[in-house]
C-alpha cells in the first residue's frame, strides 16, 4: 500500500484533490493560492501535516546533500554522483514493482552502485578516464532504460516516472522522516570523523599517502557516503534533479570562499535556503517542486558566480592600480 500510495500521491494529476482516502495530504480541491498576506500563507504551510513532513525531510536531506556535495565538488566527482543518481531510478522503480518501499530501492541501488564504482581499479591517472566515462555512460543509459521498463511493468502508474525522475514532496511519511534523519546523522558523523584526512586525500593525494593517510580506503568510504547522500536527496528531488541539492549549493559556496570550514557552512545554508523556498513556492504552485528546487539552486549558483566575478575584477583593478603607482 505505501509504495502505491506514494506513486498515486506523486502522480495525481489534479494534485491533492485526487488523493484517495487515508493518503497523507488532505482532501482539497484547487491548488492553494499565494495571497497577499505572507504571514498567513506561511502559517497555512504548517497547518498541513504532509507539508510539515515534507519540510522536515527536505531539511535533513538538504544538510546531508550540501555537506557531502561540498566534498564531491572539491574532489571533482560530480560525474560519479550523477551515475549513482541515475542508478537509483531503476532501484526505486524496481522496489515499487516488488512491493518494497521506494526508499529501500534508492538506498539499495545507490549504495550497491557506489561499491561497484569504488571497486573499479583506477588505472594510471589520465590514461583510463576516457574509457571509464564511456563505461559509466553506457551503464547510465541502461539504468534509465531498466527503470522505464519497471515503471511500465507496474501497470497503470506510468506517471510515477515523473515523481521518480523529477521528485515530489507529497506522501512523505513520518517514518520516512525518521529513517532519513537516522541515515543523515550517521552519514554526517562519518563525514566529520573522516574530516581532515579526507580533505588531505582529496586535495593532495600523493603527499597524503606519504604521510600515512589511507587514500584508497578514504576514496572508497567517500563514494559510499556519496551513494547514501544521493539516495536521500533522490527522495525529495527525484533521480535526475539530485544536483539541485548536491552540486548547486556546494558549487556556489566554492565560488564565494576558499576556506574549507566556511565553505561547508555556506553550502549547508544555501542548501537549506533552496530547499525551504523551493518547497514553499511549490506548495502554492501547480508546477512540480523539482522545478523550483532546481531553479532556485541555479539562481543561487549564478549569484555566487557573479559575486566571484565582481570581486575578481575588483582585485585585478586594485593590483593594476598598485602596479601603476
Amino acid at each position, binding site marked *: 500500500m505505501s509504495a502505491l500510495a506514494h506513486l498515486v500521491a506523486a502522480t495525481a494529476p489534479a494534485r491533492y484533490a485526487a488523493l484517495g482516502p487515508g493518503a497523507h495530504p488532505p482532501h482539497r480541491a484547487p491548488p492553494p493560492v499565494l495571497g497577499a498576506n505572507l504571514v498567513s500563507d506561511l502559517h497555512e504551510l504548517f497547518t498541513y501535516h504532509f507539508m510539515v513532513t515534507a519540510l522536515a525531510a527536505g531539511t535533513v536531506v538538504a544538510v546531508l546533500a550540501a555537506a557531502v556535495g561540498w566534498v564531491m565538488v572539491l574532489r571533482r566527482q560530480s560525474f560519479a554522483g550523477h551515475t549513482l543518481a541515475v542508478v537509483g531510478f531503476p532501484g526505486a522503480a524496481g522496489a515499487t514493482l516488488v512491493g518494497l518501499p521506494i526508499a529501500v530501492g534508492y538506498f539499495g541501488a545507490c549504495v550497491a552502485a557506489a561499491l561497484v564504482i569504488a571497486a573499479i581499479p583506477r588505472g594510471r591517472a589520465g590514461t583510463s578516464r576516457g574509457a571509464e566515462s564511456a563505461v559509466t555512460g553506457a551503464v547510465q543509459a541502461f539504468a534509465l532504460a531498466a527503470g522505464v521498463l519497471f515503471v511500465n511493468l507496474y501497470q497503470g502508474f506510468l506517471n510515477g516516472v515523473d515523481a521518480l525522475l523529477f521528485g515530489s514532496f507529497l506522501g512523505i511519511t513520518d517514518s520516512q522522516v525518521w529513517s532519513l534523519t537516522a541515515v543523515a546523522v550517521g552519514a554526517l558523523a562519518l563525514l*566529520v570523523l573522516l*574530516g581532515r584526512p579526507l580533505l588531505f586525500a582529496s586535495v593532495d593525494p600523493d*603527499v597524503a599517502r606519504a604521510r600515512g593517510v589511507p587514500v584508497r580506503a578514504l576514496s572508497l568510504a567517500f563514494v559510499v557516503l556519496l551513494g547514501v547522500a544521493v539516495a536521500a536527496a533522490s527522495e525529495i528531488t527525484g533521480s535526475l534533479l539530485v544536483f539541485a541539492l548536491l552540486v548547486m549549493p556546494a558549487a556556489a559556496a566554492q565560488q564565494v570562499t576558499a576556506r574549507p570550514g566556511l565553505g561547508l557552512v555556506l553550502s549547508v545554508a544555501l542548501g537549506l535556503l533552496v530547499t525551504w523556498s523551493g518547497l514553499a513556492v511549490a506548495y502554492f504552485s501547480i508546477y512540480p517542486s523539482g522545478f523550483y528546487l532546481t531553479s532556485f539552486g541555479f539562481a543561487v549558483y549564478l549569484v555566487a558566480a557573479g559575486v566571484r566575478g565582481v570581486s575578481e575584477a575588483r582585485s585585478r583593478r586594485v593590483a593594476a592600480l598598485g602596479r601603476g603607482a
Partner: protein
Amino acid sequence: MSTAAGAPGAPVDRPVLVMRGAAAAAGGRTLWSGVDLEVGAGEFVAVLGPNGAGKSTLVKVALGLLPLTAGSVELLGRPAGSSSRRVGYLPQRRSFDPGLAVRGRDVVRLGLDGHRWGVPFPLLLAGRRREREARTRVGEVVDLVGASAYADRPIGSLSGGEQQRLLIAQALVERPEILFLDEPLDSLDLPNQAAVASLIGGICRDSAVAVVMVAHDVNPILGQLDRVVYIAGGRVAAGSPHEVITSETLSALFSTPIEVVTTSDGRLVVVGEPEAPEVHGGRHGHEHR
C-alpha cells in the same frame, strides 16, 4: 658504489638516511643496484641522471613508498616507511586544478594535521590553544617561503612558482629533519628556478634540514650542493659535484665517452649523455615511477 666518505664539507656524524646495497626495480626491470648512500644532517644532496634512470624511485624507496628488491634503507634511524612525522616530501610536478577552491594556507595546514582523524574542534579550551598554535606555525612557514602575500588565495589560481613555494612550506611545516624534493624546479621559469633554489638552500643551511633533491639540471643548485648522487646505467656515483660531474666519472658510469664542459659563467654542461629525448606535453610526463 660510493659513500659520503671523503666528500668535502660533508661530515656524516649523524646520518639521517642510510642505504646499503640497495636495489630497486620497476616493471620487472632492475633500475639500479648496489647503492650505498649516507646523507648527514643538514646536507644538501642532489639526485641527478637521465630520464628513466630511477631518480624518483630512489626517493620513493627512501620514503618507504616503494619496496627495495635488495639491501636495506634506514630513514632517521628506522626502517623506511615507519617514520613519517619528521620527513618532508614534495612529489614531482603537482599542479592543482585551476578551480580548486582551497586556500594555499589550508594546503600548508594539511601538512601539519591533515593526517589526524576528525576536524579541528576549537570549542574546548585545549582545542582552541592547539588551533592557535597550528595557525602560528602555518604563518611562520608561509612567511619563511615568502608566500604571505598570496597564501589566502585559492591555490588553483596561483602561478606554478607560487604553488611550489606553498608546497615547500607544506613540506616544512612539521619541522622535518630531512626534506625530499622531486624536481621542484621543473616547470618554473628561470628567475623562479633561481629564487626557489636559493630558498631551498637557505632552509637547508639555516634550519639544518637535510635536503635530497631530484633535479633535471644541476646548474640552478650547483652553488648550494654538498653532494651529488648520479644515477645512470643501473649504477650510482656519489661525491661532491666537482668529483662526480667530470668527464672521467661520467664516462665510467655510462660506459661511453662523456664530456663535461664548464662554461665561462661556471655552469656545467654534460655533452654526449645518452638520454632519451625529453617528453613534453603529457601532464604526467617522464619519470613517473
